[in-house]
């Protein structure tokens, strides 16, 4: 059976996995619905709910970000359904799932950027280091300063490359030129852009290529020293070399920072992340350590997704 997807084209370009992928649901632990052939995905597609399958390892981690039964509506249309996730501290967590399943929405909910859209209503709670995110009393500005975000589409500001990078410091009123320059260089090196732009730091950030712009945005996000880095398909516009540099950056950041990364690139998820969550139509289907998720997923649906087949 085939479930129709809003953008199944995204799956077609999926590269072959690096890791050996199980071709059959041979794993004895693979859970199926008792006594039923019907998959969770079909149930969800029909509008029923299906509980997420969360691996036991998750419970042992120290969560930096805790999402509890979070639901979100764009007007009347519900985009997230009772999402519960614990993002472990100092680790890279990947969000995978077909296009339109709500990955970006979830990411934007974490730093409350969805507040900008006035039709959005939410229910549920999130906590960053045990500080509530969705409370009326929360200082959203402070909250956002604790997170850095890279958007799906590159969005450099119409100012110089240098000013783009140091923007988070500028708004904090930092005036020390040496400090600014240091941060600028470090961030640009981290984002694998330094060598390309070091001679033209004061030219417009808009004069860069799409991939360079995206790396500029990554540099901007890390310049603010966030606790949590939210990356929405940061490498979708990058060539393999830049991609691998960004992946190196993730490895470097790991430990000090917690990273939540959305990606359509299974290899990337497998290579860079410690944990992976699989989402489908606004629901979390399965969430566990990356190794297990890619080699031994508990659910057949996850297995089908990462191997490129549904149902």
């Amino acid at each position, binding site marked *: 059976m085939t479930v129709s997807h809003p953008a199944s084209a995204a799956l077609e370009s999926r590269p072959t996995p690096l890791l050996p992928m199980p071709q059959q649901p041979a794993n004895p632990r693979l859970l199926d619905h008792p006594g039923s052939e019907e998959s969770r995905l079909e149930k969800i597609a029909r509008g029923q709910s299906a509980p997420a399958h969360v691996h036991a390892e998750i419970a042992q981690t120290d969560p930096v970000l805790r999402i509890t039964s979070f639901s979100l509506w764009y007007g009347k249309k519900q985009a997230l359904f009772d999402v519960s996730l614990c993002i472990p501290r100092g680790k890279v967590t990947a969000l995978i799932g077909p296009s339109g399943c709500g990955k970006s929405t979830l990411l934007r909910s974490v730093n409350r950027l969805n507040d900008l859209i*006035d039709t959005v209503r939410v229910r549920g709670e999130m906590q960053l280091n045990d500080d509530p995110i969705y409370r*009326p009393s929360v200082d959203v500005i402070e909250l956002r300063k604790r997170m850095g*975000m890279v*958007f799906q589409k590159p*969005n450099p*500001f*119409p100012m110089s490359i240098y000013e783009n990078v140091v923007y988070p410091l500028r*708004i904090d009123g930092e005036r020390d030129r040496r400090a600014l320059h240091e941060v600028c260089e470090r961030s640009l090196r981290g984002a694998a852009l330094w060598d390309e732009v070091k001679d033209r730091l004061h030219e*417009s950030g808009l004069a860069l290529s799409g991939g360079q712009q995206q790396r500029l945005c990554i540099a901007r996000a890390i310049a603010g020293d966030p606790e949590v880095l939210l990356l929405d398909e940061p490498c979708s516009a990058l060539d393999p070399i830049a991609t691998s540099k960004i992946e190196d950056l993730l490895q470097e950041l790991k430990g000090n920072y917690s990273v939540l990364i959305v990606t359509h690139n299974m290899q990337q998820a497998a290579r860079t992340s410690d944990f992976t969550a699989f989402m489908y139509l606004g629901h979390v289907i399965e969430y566990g350590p990356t190794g297990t998720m890619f080699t031994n997923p508990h659910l057949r649906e996850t297995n089908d997704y990462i191997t490129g087949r549904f149902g």
Partner: protein
Amino acid sequence: MEPKKTYTGRPRRPRKTRSSVWLAEFASRRLITTGGIGTIVAIVTVFVFLLYVVGHLFLSASVTGQAHAEIDWAQAAPLQMGMDEDQLMCWALFPDGSLQLVRLDTGELLEKRNLFPDQHLTAVSFTPGGETTALGFEDGSVRMGTIRFDTSFLDPDELPDDVRGLEVGQAARVKSGMVLRTPQGQYRLQELAVDIKDPAKAARPSPVLLVDQSKTTTGQVVTVLTADGKLRLNTVLEKNNLLTGQTTYKLSGIDLPYAEYASTDPPLKLFMSALGDQIYLFWKDGRLVRIDARDKAKPMLAEVRDVLENGSLQVTEVRCLLGKGTFLVGDSSGRVRAWFYVPAEEAGRVVCAHDFPGTGAAVTALAVSDRSRSAAVAHRDGKIRLLFVTSDRVMAELDVSGQIPKSLVLAPKDDGLAAAAAGGIWQWTIDPLHPEITFKSLFSKVWYETHEKPEFVWQSTGGTDSFEPKYSLVPLIIGTLKASFYSLLFGVPLALLAAIYTSEFMHPKSKAVVKPTIELMASLPSVVLGFLAGLVFAQFVERIVPTVLASLFTVPLAFLVGAYFWQLLPDRLAQVLARGRFLFICLVMPPGLLAAIPVGALMEQVLFDGDLRRWLDGGGGSAVGGWVLVLLPLSAIVSVLLMGRYVNPWVRRQTIGLNRLKTALVDFGKFQSACAGTVLLAWVVALILDGFGFDARGLFLGPYSQRNALVVGFIMGFAIIPIIYTIAEDALSSVPEHLRAGSLATGATRWQTAIRIIIPTAMSGLFSAVMIGLGRAVGETMIVLMATGNTPVMNWSIFSGFRTLSANIAVELPDAVRNSTHYRTLFLAALTLFAITFVLNSLAELVRLRFRRRAYQL
């Protein structure tokens, strides 16, 4: 063959573009091109038309015809000549009292009479523009009279055949005058009309040396200098004998202080002012004596000066210009200077306002126009110059081929000139065009009659015929700029802040109401706004000036205080109330306005010595108050900048870790001290400025007139707000959402996002908005027309009225005679307006493109 199946199942899409599409493409391209070119052509046409009308102003006068007729006038030079309107004839009065009428084209003597067979003429005075002549005689009597041409139209049926057969433009002798066939086909007769009244006997029969007369409101006055050294100011008493029907005249008057000069050579010329209150005596050696007879009981010798300032020269001729205010003094070097009396409270003085440098050949004759400030001057070398005094312009140079012109006359309409010399009479027809206008008279200071110093003045019409038109565009340009400045000062900050607020801060639901409402304001016709401004608002403001001034400060302050109070609200409450924030802002306004009443009163008490109006008029109180008022906004800006630069980082370091309420309290304290600092700074600077003797009165403040720049600023600001707001709001809203999100995601506040990202990105749009507002303000007519007094005064005082170019055109064009100087100058005003807007728009476009380049590729 089975048709090839396509993916969509439809028949294969035609690759060829349909002809209708081509046609539409072609048509639209042509239409757009035509439209574009049409627009450009229309604008260029308007421009060319304006240029065409205006161009005449700068052309020089042209001599269109010249004639010479031999007349034997060798015996003496005429004392005075007169020409008829059609430039057919000329009369000449000779020293022996004979009057001759000659044809100008042939030199034929039409008539000769001796006016005073039993009297000996010794002095004459002719007044330009006025018809009355005063004649003095050896027996000490003075006669008034007129010598002029009478115009009448003849009935063709009563004309002899040879006259009836005249071609248009031809003239023939009829009776005692000449008939001209006018272009309308009429037969116009010009006849000499001489009417000399009976002699007015003086008390002492001493020969009259010099005489001048003026027709004042109280009657005719005559000043007479007699050979016995008496200078008398007389009124002419007229007595009708009811029995005989005869009128007798008598002079009765006062002696003027002249004893000092009685024994010297008699003066060359005697003049009295049009009001009869100043008497001027010119001597050959350049001495000028002015006698002030304003106080008839005590006339006094007011001024003696040298009008030549060169002992080796001699005054050869003096004439007074139309209006009897300005005296043209020609000397033996050929230089002609214009002098006039500048009245003043204590000591008025005679000044030289215009100077036509000499040619080396002495001035032999002067003639003045009866309708303008032009004059003709003849030189010993036969050159004749046609001058326009007000604009210092030499209109034409003519020549009588080596002869010495002895007498000159200008045609009544300034369109001709005749000169008498030994060889006969020379005549020129002239098209004077517009000698009043030069670049200098339009754009730089001109010294007008009775003005204390050279000034920029626009005054195109006056009450009397002898009025001197003043066509300086500068006051109008300043008025236009002033109106724009004050309305932008009021409108731009309000409109831009409103746009920023609605696009960046306002809840979309409120925005959906507010934006169309403001845009609706644009549909208010400006005539309604002008009406409100002039008749309602101006009067309202006039009653509460201090309150209005205070509200300029209290209302913004109220908003700020409100904002700080908002910060003091507990988190929960603030969050709950967040949606009603706009309502809260509206609630803050009335207290701000109310606070203006006591603050205004206090301000008036402290700054303006208790009475603002009196202070503005220049009375009471030091200049400090005004400076404080003017400097407050500036010092507010300075203190905001200083705060941001030095205080804020320090405060931030100190308040790290404080909770929201405490931070808000610190913030509030900071705000209060900033306010205090602002006032203090303004006060200190005001004290310093006052110490150096500067006074804002005369610069930005001045006597209060009911319809003033403040009122116009408010109302015109109101008129330009919608357009600026709409364009600015659109520009801000069209900044891509992903930039906003990107900035907010880094933890920037909405305000930081607005200042650092949104506004710079939308800068070109914001700039266009302001420029379009400026364009509207510059061209706006109705509001300024109705809400200012339309007095073309020139200053930057917010409390005085002004006249703009556009309002000036609207006010005066209906009354301007087509193709007159006035009419063309109004077109020049239009062209100037056009140029101003053109330059502004071009500059704006350049700046906008710069901004645009900076924010490209979005």
